[in-house]
């Protein structure tokens, strides 16, 4: 719900500056699991767990190992939905949806 408001706000003309979005990794989950961003925005994954993780979309982006307490950022370019996972923990899945 909150993400929807944010997306609506960002869609307003004059507020088009690139934004930074946080995805928190905690409790062996990507939170939120689906993040909607605009092309040019930056996504920052923050690992708050005790174990290393990755955020990896084959052929699109790969954080490699993020240590506990570490983070990794990526700038969205191509539009569309990019499903990603943690290569260490197959149950951990997330998506980034890139809009105009």
């Amino acid at each position, binding site marked *: 719900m909150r993400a929807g408001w944010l997306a609506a706000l960002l869609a307003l003309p004059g507020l088009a500056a690139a934004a930074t979005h946080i995805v928190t990794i905690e*409790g062996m*989950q990507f939170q939120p699991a689906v993040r909607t961003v605009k092309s040019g925005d930056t996504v920052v994954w923050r690992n708050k767990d*005790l*174990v290393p993780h990755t955020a990896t979309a084959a052929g699109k982006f790969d954080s490699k190992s993020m240590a506990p307490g570490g983070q990794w950022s990526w700038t969205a370019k191509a539009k569309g939905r990019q499903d990603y996972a943690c290569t*260490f*923990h*197959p*149950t951990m899945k997330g998506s980034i949806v890139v809009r105009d």
Partner: protein
Amino acid sequence: MRTHVFLAGLLAGSAVLAVHAQPGPTDPQIAHIVVTANQVDIDAGKVAEKKGSTKDVRAFGKQMVTDHTAVNKSAAALVQKLHVKPEPNDTSASLKKGGEENLAALSRLKGKEFDQAYVDHEVAYHQAVIDAVDKTLVPNARNEELKALIVKVRPALVEHLEHAKHLQAELGK
């Protein structure tokens, strides 16, 4: 008045029960159980990393080494900060013994038999550790930070259990 008398009787009764019940582990004992439980899985993971006959089994073993080493690093840092000296106890001794027996059994196996025995044990082991977290470690931990660490580790144990069950299903095909 009658209520007070009744309550007093109940409290006295539970005090008697508490004396007779097996006391839960202390914080130094809990710390030793946590460190031992991680070490046992690290030791088995090191063997599987080398001896696993499939890429998935070797990768899982490597992951157990990575994750349980990371958890023990946090546990060691916390124990040092809290000035808690981990104290060996019956539970940690039986975990250690079970780990040694598992390694001995695994050393006699290879190929698919090794994979199956290792993965079956990982499923049972993670389930047992999760049960211990829920029934013994979290309810008995007195220090809030120690309790918080154990609560924070739980989702990793659940993920490992799911991962091991997935491997178990793959091996069964």
